[in-house]
């Protein structure tokens, strides 16, 4: 045995890690006759039993449950993370990457729409390529398309308002994120009276 071998060993010279690796198997010929190995096996079994009992208590003991405030805080962050949806890589700098969440992009489009008088933004979806459904993949920056459903004031003329809306969305999204929208579909789904 090497002098600098720090591996924990049993009295019989056996590596403790080797015994632990075969703990689920029946005792081999050496272990059946070795008191050191038998003692270690018993101790490891006891350790496993205690660990299982502690894991069980973690699930059932009310005193070991996370405080309601902590649980609520975690769930609030988790729900927000789900709403943020996919991420788009905007830029790679010498320091690292810059990404934007789909929710942030969505709110930017709604903001752009809200700057056009007589336009109320409703649903907004962002996709990467025609016909490609939204999934968990990142959005392809070179092919960002969006579809915005709006309600319009009955006092505005639709064609010029749509032209202004498209121009405004494209300008604001580009100014904020450097994304050039490939396609901006607008669906007027309702008219409202002022």
């Amino acid at each position, binding site marked *: 045995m090497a002098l600098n071998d720090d591996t924990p060993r049993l009295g019989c010279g056996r590596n403790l890690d080797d015994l632990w690796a075969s703990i689920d198997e029946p005792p081999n010929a050496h272990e059946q006759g070795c008191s050191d190995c038998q003692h270690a096996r018993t101790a490891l079994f006891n350790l496993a039993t205690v660990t299982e009992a502690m894991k069980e208590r973690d699930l059932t003991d009310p005193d070991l449950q996370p405080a309601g405030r*902590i649980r609520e*805080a*975690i769930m609030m*962050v*988790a729900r*927000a*993370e789900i709403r*943020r949806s996919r*991420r788009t890589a*905007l*830029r790679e*700098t010498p*320091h*690292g*990457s*810059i*990404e*934007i*969440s789909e*929710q*942030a992009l969505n*709110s*930017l489009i709604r*903001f752009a729409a*809200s*700057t056009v008088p007589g336009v109320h933004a409703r649903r907004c979806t962002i996709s990467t390529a025609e016909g490609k459904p939204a999934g968990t993949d990142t959005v392809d920056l070179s092919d960002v398309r969006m579809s915005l459903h709006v309600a319009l004031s009955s006092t505005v003329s639709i064609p010029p308002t749509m032209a202004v809306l498209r121009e405004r969305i494209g*300008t*604001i999204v580009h*100014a*904020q*994120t*450097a994304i050039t929208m490939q396609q901006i579909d607008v669906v007027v789904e309702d008219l409202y009276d002022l």
Partner: protein
Amino acid sequence: MISDQPQESPVEPRLVDLEAVADNLSAALAQLPGILRLEPTVKSMMNRLRALSLNSLHRTTGSGWQEPRVVARDGLLLSAAGEILNVQIDVATDVAHPAVEVAETAQKRAAEIIRKAGLQVGSINVTILAIEGSPTPAHLRSTLT
């Protein structure tokens, strides 16, 4: 006494407190124009809880405290690999400032703070999780220019 022997610079162990670096980063980034807040994520939150639990365990058992290699704050996740520090920053930005430029400024500021702490700058990744603001005339002017 003057010696002819070349003097070797003494080797001194250097301890960098990642918790202090995280606090500095958190405060500096929150003050940058255009950053509304650092946004907590599940990952940063769980790492923070993990660190708190480990500290509590070390205090209870009296076992030796080891320097943490991962430190988290709301919207910040620092992971050290030797002398190199990698950072993930999650932010909400103000619509009055171009989000992508705010993110680049955040990267540069973080790099300065890491260097000042005596660490090497690894990757600094920024995710813009939210863009907020109401459409006031001032917002609109700054966004469109």
